[in-house]
């Protein structure tokens, strides 16, 4: 019997080749997307799975009286908390202070993800160790723990416990542990773990590690069932007793650790929520589509089913047969889509979002539940799309079904129409989202920046020179050559460039009025504004002639001027808050310019004079080069820098590439939305294709009669497509307000944003309508041109 069903199922699929292919295509596209998104969501929610009892983990968040918030506190606070709060089980800092060079034999590495942690680290983050003992690791000042990835770079597959690493060519550190790989979606980005005791020897750290600077993150494990509010009050007490200036702190909140990822990267939360919504939407569309198509197939098979019933089949086995047919389809499509998922979509996702969020890969021992989800999903789809459309048919009296009279099954149009409306609402929603996002990204890329990034290249020049004196003298030779180079129009040595300003803020006070303003600051040289074409509104630029006088002068931007309430620069000075020295002379004001992405507004900004052009603390060499000569200039520069002994080599890029990279995440989101929009409309149209052919089949006689009575082909086209086009119109009416609301609330998170125009929405709806009209038109045309003699005879 079973064999028989398989045979019929197979022959049916082959017979309706076109329809099966269409079904398969839609289903495969949908399933592959769902798989990818489910995997991303799964990876995200399980990335912190290594933390036992995560619900007892908390981090500290500082809220200042000036309305800012940081996920950091001062350094000594944690130790005070640990020694005075009985509810604390363990707590650790995680400080990314610097990136020391580590060496083993002749392998030298500098790991970007170097953090300093407390001896409690492994009690807070219960990370599994590949080698070593979590109870002992990091307890000794000179312990170092590596991730598997870093360990492999030094030692290959060998167990390195007890080996020595040389720290910055001076100290010898002992490897105390190697971590098992952790998902890159985890909140922990680890490479090398060193001890805070070691960090405390660092002179510049010592300078900041008092009760003044807020810069260290704290993760605390509390006793299960501890009273968090009481604990928060205790922390606040410690702040009042110990902070150098407790009046700065509005409060310190104890936040559950599960919130930290969204807190650190708010867009991650949006992406995950969007992914979940998309999974549901895509699943709905796929289901609705299959149900619609299957229903249309059912119509053409009423006779066959009636005959089978007469020959002795029962309802159950008819439902079973349909499920089997769909099961075959789902199985094949699951198979193809998992290949597409592993080989195509997952690498694509990693490429699109990997730069910001890290790459993910499938590891069976950890990710096997995902495969179970997919199998479960397959069964679910099979049952729904196999069983639902059959119920109405098996209930039909045989004598009616036998005549193949389709008109008698007309009642449930409401559901069918609701399905179509839902499907197209979603499709239009995605299209509108894509259109608006496109415009927003274009807007951000094309908006005037307030400076000119044309022909500007930047090179990183903090290359960890072995002999700094020799490097400095060679560098001044290089600068002299650059001055003589006709292709170099202008250059600047600077700590920061647009899109890469340090997160350095300070509260400055105007000594005259006592007004306090939080200003972001950085150091640069005299040619910075000239190279970037940033106009000065008033005052003057830095001058190299008299370095001693220029030290301690500031050029602010016009936002800062507004914030300070100044109208001119006469004798204006700024002072660090709490200091009584004569402060810094403000010598110039620039026009506002976008030194960071358009997501953020232009904040008050201060540029300090960084001295004459040299290597010293500068991170970048920024050059304005005649178009097309960049390669030539940098070939020379690379050759020159190769003569200076350093641990890194010179790298350069265009400033425009660097600023464009600020929008990488958004472009990734756009790419995903575009893809989803494309295939929702595709799947919806496939479904429409099936439905319209069914409609035509049902009305074949009517069309014939109308033609005999003189209806033109156009009239019949209109007759057949009218209904569907009205449905898509209704769908637009539903989708557009939702898209409007959704997108305008998302756009709120951009400091500079487009206004949503009515035509963007109309364009979305019109696009959907156009695609539907074409689909419906082609299919109706086929039935409209049939010779009525044929269609009438068939009755």
């Amino acid at each position: 019997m079973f064999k028989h069903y398989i045979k019929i199922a197979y022959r049916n699929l082959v017979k309706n080749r076109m329809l099966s292919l269409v079904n398969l295509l839609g289903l495969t596209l949908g399933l592959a997307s769902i798989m990818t998104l489910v995997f991303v969501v799964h990876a995200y929610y399980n990335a912190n799975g290594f933390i036992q009892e995560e619900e007892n983990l908390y981090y500290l968040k500082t809220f200042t009286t000036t309305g800012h918030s940081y996920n950091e506190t001062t350094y000594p606070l944690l130790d005070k908390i640990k020694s005075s709060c009985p509810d604390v089980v363990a707590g650790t800092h995680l400080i990314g202070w610097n990136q020391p060079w580590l060496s083993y034999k002749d392998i030298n590495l500098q790991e970007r993800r170097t953090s300093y942690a407390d001896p409690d680290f492994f009690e807070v983050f219960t990370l599994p160790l590949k080698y070593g003992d979590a109870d002992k690791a990091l307890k000794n000042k000179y312990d170092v723990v590596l991730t598997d990835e870093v360990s492999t770079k030094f030692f290959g597959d060998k167990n390195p416990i007890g080996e020595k690493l040389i720290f910055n060519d001076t100290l010898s550190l002992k490897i105390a542990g190697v971590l098992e790989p952790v998902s890159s979606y985890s909140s922990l980005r680890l490479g090398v773990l060193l001890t805070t005791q070691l960090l405390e020897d660092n002179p510049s750290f010592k300078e900041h590690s008092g009760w003044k600077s807020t810069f260290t993150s704290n993760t605390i494990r509390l006793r299960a069932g501890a009273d968090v509010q009481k604990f928060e009050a205790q922390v606040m007490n410690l702040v009042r007793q110990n902070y150098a200036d407790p009046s700065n702190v509005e409060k310190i909140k104890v936040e559950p650790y599960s919130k930290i990822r969204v807190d650190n990267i708010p867009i991650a939360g949006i992406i995950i929520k969007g992914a979940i919504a998309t999974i549901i939407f895509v699943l709905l569309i796929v289901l609705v589509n299959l149900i619609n198509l299957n229903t249309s197939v059912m119509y053409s098979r009423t006779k066959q089913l009636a005959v089978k019933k007469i020959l002795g089949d029962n309802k159950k086995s008819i439902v079973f047969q349909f499920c089997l047919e769909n099961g075959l389809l789902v199985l094949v499509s699951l198979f193809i889509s998992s290949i597409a998922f592993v080989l195509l979509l997952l690498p694509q996702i990693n490429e699109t979002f990997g730069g910001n969020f890290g790459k993910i890969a499938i590891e069976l021992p950890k990710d096997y539940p995902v495969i179970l989800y997919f199998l479960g999903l397959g069964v679910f789809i099979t049952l729904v799309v196999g069983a639902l459309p059959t119920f109405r048919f098996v209930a039909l009296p045989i004598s009616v079904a036998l005549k193949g009279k389709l008109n008698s099954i007309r009642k449930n149009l409401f559901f069918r129409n609701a399905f179509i409306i839902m499907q197209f609402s979603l499709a239009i929603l995605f299209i509108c989202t894509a259109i608006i996002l496109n415009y927003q990204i274009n807007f951000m890329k094309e908006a005037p920046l307030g400076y000119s990034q044309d022909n500007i290249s930047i090179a990183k020049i903090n290359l960890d020179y072995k002999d700094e004196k020799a490097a400095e003298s060679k560098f001044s030779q290089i600068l002299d050559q650059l001055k003589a180079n006709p292709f170099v129009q202008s250059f600047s040595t600077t700590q920061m460039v647009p899109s890469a300003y340090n997160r350095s803020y300070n509260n400055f006070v105007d000594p005259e009025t006592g007004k306090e303003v939080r200003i972001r600051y950085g150091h640069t040289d005299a040619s910075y504004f000239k190279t970037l074409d940033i106009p000065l509104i008033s005052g003057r630029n830095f001058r190299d002639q008299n370095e001693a006088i220029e030290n301690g002068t500031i050029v602010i931007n016009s936002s800062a001027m507004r914030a300070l309430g100044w109208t001119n620069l006469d004798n204006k000075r700024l002072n660090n808050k709490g200091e009584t020295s004569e402060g810094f002379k403000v010598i110039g004001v620039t026009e506002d310019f976008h030194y960071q992405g358009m997501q953020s507004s232009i904040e008050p900004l201060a540029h300090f004079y960084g001295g004459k052009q040299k290597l010293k603390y500068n991170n970048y060499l920024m050059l304005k080069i005649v178009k097309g000569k960049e390669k030539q200039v940098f070939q020379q520069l690379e050759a020159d820098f190769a003569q200076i002994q350093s641990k890194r080599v010179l790298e350069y890029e265009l400033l425009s590439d660097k600023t464009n990279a600020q929008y990488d995440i958004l472009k990734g989101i756009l790419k995903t939305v575009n893809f989803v929009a494309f295939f929702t409309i595709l799947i919806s149209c496939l479904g429409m294709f099936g439905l319209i052919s069914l409609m035509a089949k049902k009305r074949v006689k009517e069309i014939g009669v109308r033609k005999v009575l003189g209806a033109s082909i156009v009239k019949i086209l209109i007759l057949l497509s009218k209904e569907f086009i009205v449905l898509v119109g209704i769908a637009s009416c539903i989708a557009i307000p939702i898209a409007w609301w959704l997108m305008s609330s998302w756009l709120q998170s951009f400091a500079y944003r487009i206004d949503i125009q009515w035509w963007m929405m109309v364009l979305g709806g019109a696009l959907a309508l156009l695609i539907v009209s074409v689909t419906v038109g082609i299919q109706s045309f086929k039935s409209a041109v049939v010779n009525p003699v044929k269609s009438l005879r068939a009755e």
Partner: protein
Amino acid sequence: MLLQLKNVSKWVQSGGQKTFLLKDINFWVNEGDFISIMGPSGSGKSTLLNVIGMLDGFNEGEYTFLDESVHSLKEKHRSNLYKQYIGFVFQSYHLIDELTVKENLEMPLLYKKYGSSERKSLVGDMLDRFNIVGKKDLFPSQLSGGQQQLVGIARALIASPKLILADEPTGNLNSKQGEEIMETFTQLNKEGVTIIQVTHSEKNMAYGSRVINLLDGNLV
């Protein structure tokens, strides 16, 4: 007596009025009968046949089939009854397009849970009997109308029913094919199968042993 209809009526409501499809039909069939139901279009022939075949219900009256009162049976019992005792032959054959001749014949046996070897021999017998061995692996669309109807009859017969209901079995065939089909029915009737056919043609009617005339749902 194989079956008996007593005062059977069937109607539909249209515009608040009853339109009778069958009215007060009294009618019986003995085993071994070959009955022709005659009447103009719309006189209720097919409806009567569907009622006899239990594919359709009726509104009033009694229907006894092999001492079972069909009108008081549950849907499930009723379908078991017709599956066991009745074979259907249709004007447009109603073979299953996706199945070969052999598989079409095998189908009713599958539903009755015959074993594999038994199915094989029964199908083989039928193919022999109707001389269509050579066509056993063809699909219905590859056969002529007459051949398709032969397969239809073979399929109706394969589970050895007591009664065959044929709704215009020659309606879609040319006269020569039609004659052959009618010859087959006569032969079957001689072998003891009860046959009820609905027909338009006087010529086909002549093959039967008894004629029932219908007009506007009434027996005349």
